[in-house]
């Protein structure tokens, strides 16, 4: 009698655990599509990567391209701008890190690690303070003291390598992942 009772008890326990486990797996499988549907669709992901044609950009000129819903600065730097960017001591910067998605997080903000092709500086046009779009500085109309950008919202000033030099912004302008497909065509993202 005792053996039969414990057998029946064990069998019921087994059935409960087995049914419960299968039910849990089934429930997870049923719920997943409803969670995953909120992830970016293939359409959104396709727009995550764009190719930009650089042929029309003159030295000293910047274009603003919409990338992943935000402004992207593509700036063709003059030799003077490259010089002034290289001359800065990295350790004196408010933010010494490169903030370059193509490099490890620990890379330092040397100009060579900000713009792999020195003539082309490609950075996200999003001020790292609170997200405004900074205004570009040109020799004709200077914005800020460092020749790069001035953010009019709260006065952050960036240099010709997009690094923060003065003002409340904590980080250098972010460099997105990009690869040059040819000398005149870059794929960002």
């Amino acid at each position, binding site marked *: 009698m005792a053996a039969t009772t414990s057998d029946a008890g064990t069998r019921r326990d087994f059935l409960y655990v087995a049914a419960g486990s299968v039910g849990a797996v089934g429930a997870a499988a049923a719920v997943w599509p409803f969670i995953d549907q909120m992830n970016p*669709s*293939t359409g959104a992901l396709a727009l995550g990567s764009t190719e930009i044609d650089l042929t029309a950009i003159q030295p000293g000129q910047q274009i603003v391209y919409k990338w992943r819903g935000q402004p992207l600065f593509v700036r063709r730097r003059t030799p003077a701008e490259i010089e002034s960017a290289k001359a800065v001591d990295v350790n004196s910067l408010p933010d010494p890190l490169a903030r370059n998605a193509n490099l490890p997080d620990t890379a330092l903000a040397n100009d060579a690690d900000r713009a792999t092709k020195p003539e082309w500086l490609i950075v996200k046009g999003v001020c790292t303070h609170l997200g405004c779009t900074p205004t570009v500085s040109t020799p004709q109309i200077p914005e800020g003291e460092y020749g790069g950008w001035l953010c009019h919202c709260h006065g952050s000033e960036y240099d010709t390598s997009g690094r923060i030099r003065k003002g409340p912004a904590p980080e250098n302008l972010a460099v997105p992942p990009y690869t040059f497909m040819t000398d005149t065509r870059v794929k960002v993202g």
Partner: protein
Amino acid sequence: MSGPSTYNPKSGLERWIDARLPLPRLLHDTVHTFPTPRNLNIWYTFGGILAFCLGVQIVTGITLAMHYVANANLAFNSVETIMRDVNYGWLIRYIHANGASMFFLAVYIHMFRGLYYGSYKAPRELLWIIGVLIYLLMMATAFFGYVLPWGQMSFWGATVITNLFSAIPVVGSHIATWLWGDFAVGDATLNRFFSLHYLLPFIIAGVVVLHIWALHVPGNNNPLGIDVKSPQDTVPFHPYYTVKDAFYLVLFVILFAAFVFYSPDFFGNPDNYQPANPLVTPPEIVPEWYLLPFYAMLRSIPSKLLGVLVMGGAIVTLVFIPWLDTSRVRSCRFRPLMKQFFWGLVVCCVLLGYCGAQSVDAVKFGIPMVWVARIASIYYFAFFWLIMPIIGLIETPKKLPASIAQSVLGDKAAAPAE
């Protein structure tokens, strides 16, 4: 039967909540210990199945609404974006579309169950009427929902149905214009239909709560149609009917899944994969299958206003059923004559559905389908307004069993309940 609560809060937390908001008590009394007749069969599982369907439609509908755009220029493409680009969008859309068909399949079985076992009879008249209200809300919701993809059938179905209102004398065309928000079905109509389609399911949910409340006052009917006479006639809802409902729900979902994964466009109309064109009418305008019987009734009457009244009358008739049936016996199991007319009604409804799918001048086996629809419509109304009252008075019912327990347990019914 609703009686004193049997909930006994054990832990301190349970007592604390029970003193402030007795929701666990409510759930315990309605879903755990609720005394339910012990002889319920498969046809009584469709109420639970319907609640499941409502939940599925709401969840899939809300997730679809995250991607759908209710603008006449963008709606069709937004649905295709869901099908092609949104992660699992194709699955959610097919579940929602086929879910509507499964919802109506379940509701028709549920309603026919009510007719067969006399579940509409006293004291459950309001329960039945609330059910008719839910059915009406479901039809409205399904109609609005079908318009949203803005295909050819969406647009022209909307045009036909909203034009029905113009049949009303004097104010009809003004009502139609008011419904459209424009001179014809268009962007304004689509936007408001989306709003209403999102709203109505939550109204349905509220009315379902009333439906279950109205059920729990007298308690469930049962296949014998005789009242519960003692606790021996019942079993606690859990685990007996939670498990039974879950089992038949699984079978239902298997059928549901067969459509979603192996034939998701079975119930659909190919014309709805064409974007809406207000200038070109498709050769056949057909509603979804669950509205076909009413469509057949509408088209079988040559007069526009009369056709609308007959179609509306068919649904309004349902409200009066508790008073049209004069029999003192509830269940058709003991009503040999009524049983046959009941099956006649089932055949007639299926026939009406078939006619609704044919073109107006179709002829099969030498018989014009419009005449089949007319005769079936006549039977439909005759069943409720003539047969139900008369049969109840002239029929000799079979002998009813002494009690539910006795019919289930035989002579052991005298033994104490376990």
